[in-house]
Every structure is written in structure tokens, then in C-alpha cells.
């Protein structure tokens, strides 16, 4: 059978059988990804690392499920649990990963262990039995996510059902996932991915981005060779506030590169072979335990991906686009009865030579549903006063940048507010004469006081009836605006 045809069929089966999961991945026994359904940039690089570490230390057998959330073991942010299941097919072990997201909490700590309960790879289902000891320990932990055990057990049940369907589909289609087919699949994917990468002009570009304080820098050189892209972060410094795991950086580079192509490329081992990422150990793009990683994994990855897009645009002018808002606006409010509110507004997408920007849409997320206003108000002592696009926050130009988002809430009980606008808090720049967009900002109105704009990060107590107003950045405009001339 034709290798292209086999590869297309396999991809189709993976897409269809895993379609009910928002985020999922299948890896071969060498932890080479066959399929990644990503929700964000982190998923791309971390699933293979998670499965590799689980398999190395846990020796996963058919049906076993390993849980982890440790960012240094291939996890995402710590409120998101990663599950890796062993799946034996035609004497080949396939590792099936998915994620269960619990409500995140804004963390600006000095140590990763202060960001939440860090769970290294731990078997939760082995040889047909649940690891009740583990669930009991978590159940008694003060920071345990709500309905932890129930949600995880439901997800494992879903994984089991999907596994059966996957096996059956492969059998009906006459595809045996043996070594020969997998080798052929990876090679075909690599060949096709490289063909599309080679559509980008050959060249290189370099940038340095000053963070806060200015001694902290993100340095990146992108080099496009014939059918290969190199991302070299040499000279990037350590950062006290923004740290990413190296696997998350791989995801950011791959996600950004493939987003710039005209053809949608499935990101798997073949596609990852078309890139090379160099990250100096201990720097902010290759953090070492115990560096905190929450902000890096939420905001830092967007910064890396946006920087990659800027540099690809310098190498190949056809890919040029202004800057999208990558400084995230995150707000967390703890209420007295133990509930908490978390908000993370999407920014505007920048304009390019071909089109205007898009309002309130994060380029690097694939789940764009905002939390329901009614559900938020039912669960928490607050009222949403308004939410919508932040008018005129996109940069002007021949093509206008997309507007950011604005949201105002009033709290009905006293609460402890923490907030963060990730560095660098600059205006998303316009391009080719287009204007910059409005930067992100957060303000509070305490009863009896005037509106108060808040600094980049901080914490404060708010009395009842205080208002919090959040504005995310717009996207930069593209091209000089041509003034209309009257007759």
C-alpha cells in the first residue's frame, strides 16, 4: 500500500477516534509522537517528554495509566493533570496521553513547589486496579483540586473506550501498527513537513528582548535552511520571574513555525524532525528545578512564539505581521469561603499585509470559550458588570489590528486580589507604518475612591463592592493608513 495513503489514513483514524478529547496525543514506544491534538503550545513539546519519562521510570504495561503534573517531567501548568496510558497493538506499545484541566490559580512564587501540589509520574491504574492510596493522600491535601478523583477516573474510563475504538478502527482498515508501518509513517510525515518548511525563504534573523529587570534577556536566532528550521536561544539569560521548561519551548517554536505555513501541517515526530531547538540549560528557556514555571508556561510560551513569528517575518517578508498582544492579563481573587476567581483575557490578533487583525483571540490557544457569565455569578460572590471587545485598542493602519478584550467585575464580598501583566509590558507594535496597539492594563475602583491603575504585578485586599477592570492588549496595525480624499 502507498505510504502516503497509509499515513493519511492513520492520521484520519487518530483525529476521528480522539476527537472527543480537547487535548490528546499518541506516541510510539520510543515516545515519538504519532499524533498530537493540542490545545496550546505547551502540549506540542510536553506530551512526548511526559510519555518518555513515564515509560522510562514506570515501565508502562497495556492498560496502565500514569498521572503527573510535574512541569519538569513533561507536565503543563500544575492545575492540569497529564495522563499517560499504555496501549498494546500488534505487539507494539503505544502511549496514549490526555490532559484534565482543573481551575488554575495565578502563581507568582519563588519556588515551583509553592505553585501547587507537584505530582511526579505516579501509577493510578495498574494491572486493573486503582491506586487508592494515592487518591486518599490527595483527598486530604489542602490544595487538592475539586472533584479530583471523580474527574480523573471518568477520564480514564473515556480513554479506555477510545482505546477500544482505536484498535477496532485500525483492524477494520487493515492497518497494523508494527515497527515497519510506524517507521514508514514517521519518514513520510518528515518528508512532507520538510517540503512545506522549504517554502519559507532561506535566511536568518536575530533579536534580543529585554525583560524586567533589563539585565534579563530573551535572545533568539532563527535560521531557515533548506527544509529545516533552527531556533537558537544561546545568550538567553536566567530570569527570576519568567521560566519555561525546554519541552514547552520546543512546542512554542514548532507551533509558531507551522502556523506561518499556508498548509496545515500535522505536528508529530516527522514535523518535529524538521526543527532544531537550542536552549542553554539554566536559562529562562530551559529552566532547572526549582524555578517556578507558571508564568513561563502561560505567558512565556506566547512571548517565544510571537518572537519566532517576528523573526520568520524578517527572513521571509511574505510572512510579515505586526505584533499580537502577548502580554497576558491575569487576575485571581480569593474569597473568604475558600472559592476563587481566575481570569485570563485573550488579546487582539495583529494585522498583516493581507488582512485586518481579529478581536479577542489568542493565537496560541485552541480553546476560546470564555467562562459563562451566569455560571461565574452562580458560583462566586461577584457580578460581571460588562465584557466585550476593547474599542479602538487595536493599532490603526491600512489594515487595523484586532481589538483586545475588556471586562469589569464587582465583588460582592471582600476578596484578596492578585494580578499579573507578564513582561515585557510594551505596546504590541505595528508594522510597515501601522500603529501600535493599546497595551494591557488593570485598574480597581474601591468604594469611595477614584479609579486606580495597577502596576505590572501585585496583591491587595479589596472590600466588598470594589470593581476590577481588566483590559487586554490589542494587536498592532499593518501599513500606513491612506487618508480618504474627498472629490
Amino acid at each position, binding site marked *: 500500500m*502507498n505510504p*502516503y*495513503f497509509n499515513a*493519511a*489514513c492513520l492520521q*484520519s*483514524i487518530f483525529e*476521528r*477516534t480522539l476527537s472527543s478529547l480537547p487535548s490528546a496525543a499518541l506516541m510510539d514506544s520510543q515516545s515519538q509522537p504519532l499524533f498530537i*491534538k*493540542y490545545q496550546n*503550545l505547551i502540549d506540542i513539546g510536553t506530551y512526548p517528554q511526559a510519555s518518555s519519562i513515564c515509560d522510562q521510570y514506570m515501565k508502562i504495561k497495556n492498560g496502565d495509566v500514569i498521572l503527573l503534573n510535574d512541569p519538569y517531567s513533561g507536565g503543563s501548568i500544575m492545575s492540569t493533570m497529564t495522563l499517560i496510558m499504555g496501549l498494546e497493538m500488534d505487539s507494539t506499545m503505544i502511549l496514549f496521553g490526555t490532559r484534565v484541566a482543573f481551575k488554575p490559580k495565578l502563581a507568582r512564587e519563588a519556588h515551583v513547589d509553592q505553585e501547587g501540589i507537584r505530582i511526579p509520574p505516579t501509577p493510578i491504574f495498574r494491572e486493573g486496579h486503582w491506586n487508592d492510596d494515592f487518591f486518599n493522600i490527595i483527598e486530604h491535601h489542602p490544595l487538592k483540586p475539586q472533584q479530583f478523583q471523580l474527574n480523573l477516573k471518568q477520564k480514564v474510563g473515556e480513554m479506555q473506550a477510545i482505546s*477500544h*475504538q482505536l484498535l*477496532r*478502527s485500525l*483492524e*477494520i*482498515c*487493515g492497518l497494523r501498527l508494527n515497527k515497519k508501518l510506524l517507521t514508514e509513517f514517521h519518514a513520510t510525515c518528515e518528508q*512532507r513537513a520538510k517540503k*512545506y518548511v522549504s517554502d519559507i525563504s532561506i535566511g536568518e534573523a536575530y533579536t534580543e528582548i529585554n525583560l524586567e529587570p533589563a539585565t534579563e534577556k530573551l535572545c533568539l536566532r532563527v535560521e531557515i535552511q533548506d527544509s529545516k528550521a533552527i531556533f537558537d536561544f544561546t545568550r538567553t539569560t536566567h530570569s527570576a520571574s519568567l521560566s519555561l521548561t525546554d519541552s514547552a519551548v520546543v512546542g512554542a517554536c514548532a*507551533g*509558531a513555525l*507551522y*502556523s*506561518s505555513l499556508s*498548509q*496545515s*501541517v*500535522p*505536528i508529530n515526530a516527522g514535523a518535529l524532525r524538521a526543527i532544531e531547538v537550542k536552549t542553554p540549560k539554566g536559562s529562562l528557556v530551559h529552566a532547572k528545578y526549582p524555578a517556578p514555571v507558571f508564568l513561563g508556561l502561560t505567558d512565556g510560551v506566547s512571548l517565544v512564539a510571537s518572537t519566532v*513569528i517576528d523573526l520568520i517575518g524578517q527572513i521571509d517578508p511574505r*510572512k510579515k505581521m505586526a505584533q499580537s498582544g502577548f502580554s497576558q492579563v491575569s487576575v485571581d481573587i480569593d474569597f473568604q469561603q475558600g472559592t476563587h476567581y481566575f481570569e485570563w483575557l485573550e488579546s487582539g*490578533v495583529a494585522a*498583516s499585509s*493581507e*488582512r485586518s487583525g*481579529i478581536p*479577542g*483571540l489568542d*493565537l*496560541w490557544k*485552541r480553546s*476560546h*470559550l*470564555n467562562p*459563562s*457569565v*451566569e*455560571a461565574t*455569578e*452562580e458560583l462566586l460572590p461577584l*457580578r460581571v*458588570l*460588562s*465584557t*466585550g*471587545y476593547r474599542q479602538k485598542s487595536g493599532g490603526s493602519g491600512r489594515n487595523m489590528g484586532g481589538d483586545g*478584550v475588556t471586562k469589569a467585575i464587582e465583588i460582592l464580598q471582600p476578596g484578596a486580589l492578585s494580578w499579573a501583566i507578564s513582561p515585557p509590558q510594551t505596546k504590541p507594535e505595528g508594522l510597515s507604518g501601522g500603529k501600535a496597539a493599546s497595551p494591557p492594563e488593570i485598574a480597581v475602583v474601591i468604594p469611595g475612591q477614584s479609579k486606580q491603575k495597577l502596576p505590572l504585578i501585585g496583591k491587595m485586599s479589596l472590600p466588598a463592592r470594589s470593581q476590577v477592570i481588566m483590559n487586554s492588549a490589542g494587536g498592532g496595525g499593518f501599513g500606513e493608513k491612506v487618508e480618504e480624499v474627498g472629490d
Partner: protein
Amino acid sequence: MGFVMAHRVCISQSESFLEISAWDQNSPHPYSQRYYLPKISLRKSLADFWTQSKIEKVERVFLNIKNSRTILKRRLGHSPTFLVTEGFENWFDMNLPIKTRSFTLNPSRVESLLDSDWVFGVKERTSATGEVISEVQTEELDFLAAKLELTKNKNICIGFLHSSKNPQNENRAKDYFVAKGFQVFTSHEYAFCKNERQRWLTAILNGYLAPHIHEQLSQYFASELLSDPEMEIEIVTGEGFKSRDQFTALSSLVGDPYLLQAHASQNEVIYYFGFDEFLSVESSTQQDTLSTELGPAAISSPKHEVLPISPTHVLQNDFWGLGAWSDSAAGYEPGPICIGRGLQPTFLDVLSLYVNLEKLEPLQSMLIPQNKRRILEALHSFSKDLKQEWSQKELIESLLRLALTPVVARFPGDRPIVFAGPFASAMKAVFQQLFKGLNISLDADSDFKLTRAPLWREKEL
């Protein structure tokens, strides 16, 4: 004077096809016919059917108007005015799903059903406990009414926050506008929805589709053939047959699954292969929400799925260099090459090269045998950059397998599979030829399964 036998008639109309069956209580064999609407008008089709089936009197008509999907997909409906809690004017659009699954520098949300110029914030508020914090003011409604009366748009949707807890404000606004002659769709009618997004979407979909559906129905009601005042005319919905003033426009989207459930055994999964779309229906399971491209809407129907392939899905360039099937059906405007319509190869074109479709009504009079060469040339052009020699058989089988792999990937392992619809027999042959270990049975009344369903329901009763 002789005894006149009263008939029952079921009519199913899609964008391009009209299928009709008629039967009387004494005859076990219904008469059925299918018409291709671009060639023969609705009026002439009905007249021809009445003549051919020798209908003198009709006592009951079941109307399955199913082209709402096309109206929705091509945004051919009427954007309603949307009144929403002030401060949340963008909220509906902000929650529309994103089109592309993979990362792209050109992302976009699905196109809204609303015109932003006709979305108005209303100063009103109800709390999460259902307490009305701020009542709707008549002065504000007077101002809005003055604006709306300048337009021909008579459809208003109302989406106020927490109206499911207390519909007082929505009802007050509704009463006001109904009194002024507007048709109003309030979101609290779908109070069982999970949240405001689903409630608002359901109200907006009904408002968007209603003018189109009513226009369609008026064509039938204007027909002399259906003008007998004693004739009972019912609309097929996901929950059964409803009278004209009982059904909602959105419910007409799911008439097919309701009809296909008829005469099905408890455990069966029915795969219907029609001219417009292919769908699967689980015979004994209901669903409360319908997955639309705009998100889930609240409408009850038998559990079903529109399959990712249909006769008019077209072949496009793809990552693998083989050609991939489009995400949605392109319809019959222009349509498949094999019937002399379009230039892009469709699934029906590939199917026509693999199985004999010449006995299929009304395709037998439409197929152009000379076009086979054009189809093959078009197919070969998709895989030319792979620089591989494909035999004709290999190419056709590969494209059919690519089209049907997503379908078999969801085939139930533990439930009987029954194929029905005009393409059922052809598709059974294709599946059994290309895939392994499938146990598929063919519905006994396959070809006109949809419009003969009410007959089976009556027999069961």
C-alpha cells in the same frame, strides 16, 4: 359516485431534491418518487406526483423541510435584531468557535448570525438568584421600537442574563414588542440549557431560520393540491410531527433522525446515505442538544451525527499530496462532474467510477458517461506532486478509503449496523470491498426510507 380512497403523503425537501411517498390504508405498497429540483420546480413536481400516484384525496401530509442546514451553512437566513443585557453586546460573537483546529496566523471565528448594527444593549439586570435588580424600562423599549420600525426586520431575539432564573424582564420586553407586531424569540424558553451562551444561540438560530422556513411552508400551503381544509398538515421535527403553529424553525433541522428511527430495532445504528448528506442515527437514544458550527443548541432529537462525507464533499489539496475531502458538503450548485455540473471532483464522482449508479432514481437520467475521463484527469492532478504512478483502480479505491475511514473509525463494535437511503446498496458494496470484518445489513425499504417512515410508524401503532 365511487368511493374515494384518502391518501397520506410524506414530502421531504432538501436544497436540490424532493422525495415524496404516498399510501392509503388499504394498500401495503406506497408509491414513491424523487425529483431533482434544479430541473423541475416544486409546483410541477407535486403535480406530477399527484398524477402518477393517482391521488384524489389526501387526509394527512407530513412535511420534512430539511434545507435549513444549507441556509445556516451558507448564511442565507435573516439576521434577527438581538436585545441583550447592556454591557454584553459582544458576548455572543466573542464565544463563537474558531474555524481552524491547527495553529495559523489567519485564525477566525465562524461567521456570526447577527449584524452588529442590530444588536442593542438594554438596561436591565437579574441576579444569579433570580432577583430583578433592574427592571426593563418602557421608555427604553419605546426608543428601540422607533428604531426597529424603520426596518423590515420583524424578528427580535432577546437574551437577558439569568432569564432562566426569572424571565420577568424578557417577558416584559417580549409582550411590548409582540404588541407592536414583531415576532419575538426569548431565550428563557430554553431554560434547561447549560448557560446563557446555549440559550442565546438557540433563540438566535430560531429567529434566523424562522423567516426562511415559513417562506418554504407558504409555498406548500399556497399549492392547490394541499388546500383542502380537511387535510391535516404536519411538520416533521426531532420530537415528532407538529402542527404549523407548534413547531420551531430549529427543530426542522432534525426531522431526518426522527423519521429514520421508524421501524428500527432497539439496538440498531442506522446509517442513512442520502443525496444531500450521510448520517448515522442511534435508534434508541435521544440527545438534548444539537451540535452546530456555532456551538451546541438546545433541541431534542434521536441521537445522530452528520457524517464527515456526503455525495457533494469535494476533493481539495492537502498536506499528504493525495487530495483530501472538504470539511463540508458543497451541495449541487454547481455539483458533481458526473452530472455535468461542477469542475471539482466530488465524492459522488469517485463513487460513480467504482459502482454502478445508473439504476438510481433520479440519477439515471442525469449521469453523463462521457464525463468519466474528466473526473479521472481531475483526480490524477491532485497526486501529481508525489511523482508516483497510480493505477486507476488504486487511485479510486484510495480516495474512497480516505473518505470512509473517518466513518468506520466510529462504527459501533457492539450494535447492529443497518444501511438505508438511496445510496445504501452501493455504499454497502463499497464498505465490504474496502474494509474488513464488517457486518452490515440493508434496510428492507432502503431507497425511500425517509418518506415511508410515517407509514411504518402507523403500522407499528
